[in-house]
């Protein structure tokens, strides 16, 4: 699939690459169903979605996707253990009320969790705060501080720390540039945390849950 440099959701292709063909996938915060559709077309997955907005759910249902109106904070608790191979949360973690609970539920419901989020450690974000003394507004984080759904922003390092706290294993991690393409350099974490505008992680449970 050729990428449109103006499409801010190029992380979808990166996520799709992490999914094994034919698997069962739950996309939490699936929006208009673009990722689920991509996964159905390219990976032949059995996909399900959860989306908060009525218009998003309607678009998904009209596309033939199985999507439920709900959100990551309140509805994940009702899913049984091990129902899916992958649970995906793309560009939604920062908008959840309890990111830690959301992650924990994802790792309970799916054998793998895939999370993408805007990196608050990016140099552009840092300079806006450090030099201008203003809350950062960037291409990925375009809302002003008083009118944003993004209530739990974090940096790549913050996220990695939370994953370790939850006892999960990072099977794959990538920092993405502003267009969603992976930064293809072997660099230490602090470089990624500085240069990546977004990040995508594939997580696994470290040990079988009791």
């Amino acid at each position, binding site marked *: 699939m050729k990428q449109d440099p103006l499409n801010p959701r190029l992380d979808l292709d990166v996520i799709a690459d992490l999914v094994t063909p034919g698997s069962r996938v739950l996309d939490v915060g699936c929006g208009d169903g673009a990722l689920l559709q991509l996964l159905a077309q390219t990976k032949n997955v059995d996909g*399900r979605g959860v989306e908060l907005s*009525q218009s998003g*759910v*309607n678009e*998904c*249902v*009209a*596309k*033939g*996707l*199985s*999507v*439920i*109106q*709900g959100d990551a904070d309140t509805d994940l608790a*009702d*899913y*049984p253990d091990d*129902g899916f191979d992958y649970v995906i949360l793309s560009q939604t973690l920062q908008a959840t009320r309890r990111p830690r609970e959301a992650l924990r539920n994802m790792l309970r419901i799916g054998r793998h969790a895939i999370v993408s989020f805007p990196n608050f450690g990016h140099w552009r974000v840092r300079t806006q705060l450090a030099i201008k003394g203003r809350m950062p507004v960037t291409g990925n984080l375009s809302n002003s501080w008083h009118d944003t759904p993004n209530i739990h922003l974090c940096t790549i390092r913050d996220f990695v720390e939370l994953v370790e706290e939850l006892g999960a294993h990072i099977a794959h991690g990538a920092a993405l540039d502003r267009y969603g393409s992976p930064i293809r350099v072997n660099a230490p974490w602090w470089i990624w945390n500085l240069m990546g505008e977004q990040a995508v992680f594939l997580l696994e449970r470290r040990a079988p849950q009791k």
Partner: protein
Amino acid sequence: MTNFSHAQQEQNGSAGKTVTFSSDQGLLTDGGGAIAPLTLAYETYGKLNENKSNAILLCHALTGDQYAAGVHPVTGKTGWWDAMVGPGKPFDTDRYFIICSNVVGGCMGSTGPASINPRSSKPYGLDFPVVTIRDMVRAQSMLIDYLGIDTLFCVAGGSMGGMQVLQWAASYPQRVFSAMPIATAAKHSAQNIAFHEVGRQAVMADPDWRGGRYLEQGVRPEKGLAVARMSAHITYLSEAALQRKFGRKLQDRSAPTFSFDADFQIENYLRYQGLAFVERFDANSYLFVTRACDYFDLAADYGGVLARAFKETKTRFCVVAFDSDWLYPTSDSRSIVHALNAGGASVSFVEIESDKGHDAFLLHEPMFNATTRGFLESAAAARGLRDSLK
């Protein structure tokens, strides 16, 4: 499938299509009764395709009937789902073969308490067996067998119709390709039972009810049934809709009369609803259909775990709730969705914004319309249905 050598097809004027299953093919009810012979009145719209893969069964609500679309031959009004059923509408009669039958226990041509009891040659009255939602669905399956249809492309319905949809999906999973339970619940709540009981007591308190034997005595408990309908009608609306439509507006007068006349428009409206209802509905039928809803608790048949009712189902579900519906609130639909999820079913769920209360599913709600259309189209693609039969 049942052998229908004794089933009789009849066409008799305003009752539309009917089929009668003879004495040895009647319906054994959950309560241990038997309804034989059993007549089912039904209506169809559109054409059944060659491989019989485009049939949709619509299940009507409490006081609905088989006339889902077009002009109702008895009331002269449009059918209960005319907003949704017809050429080019979501339940597209150019594309699908739509079946709708009057429930057993009803009063629009199917066997019910007003039918003649073959044992006494008098109307059944309260001797009619108490029927359940599952009995209604079993009767419908006999009709579907009779029509020679193996798998229904979709079973859809709201309220009591939605309960039948859930029962269909649980009882005959292999015969239901897709299902739309709308504004409904997997069990009747205490509040729902309470409202129904008020209605039934209103009917029974009418001296003309005569212990259910009013037909033989040439009277009808119209006042009681009208009161039952008035109280029920309030539960179908929302506070916001009542306020918007009526508020405290007075009926054809500029000042209150300080009497018990229908001073307020809302009173006049409810009285009209009550009167219109008694013209088309049998009071005993009302007792039986409300009772069927009260007994509905799908999980109870599956060890109390609703998810087990849908275990390993291949049916595609689309569950719809309306945010102002307080009779079958969104939480009821969510319980269904959770059970379907737990069973690993393919399920979509939408809560439609509307201030019209429970009745919203019967009205033209553009978002509901779009959801239904999208769901059916995707299911049709999965089923390999061609775009049109034309």
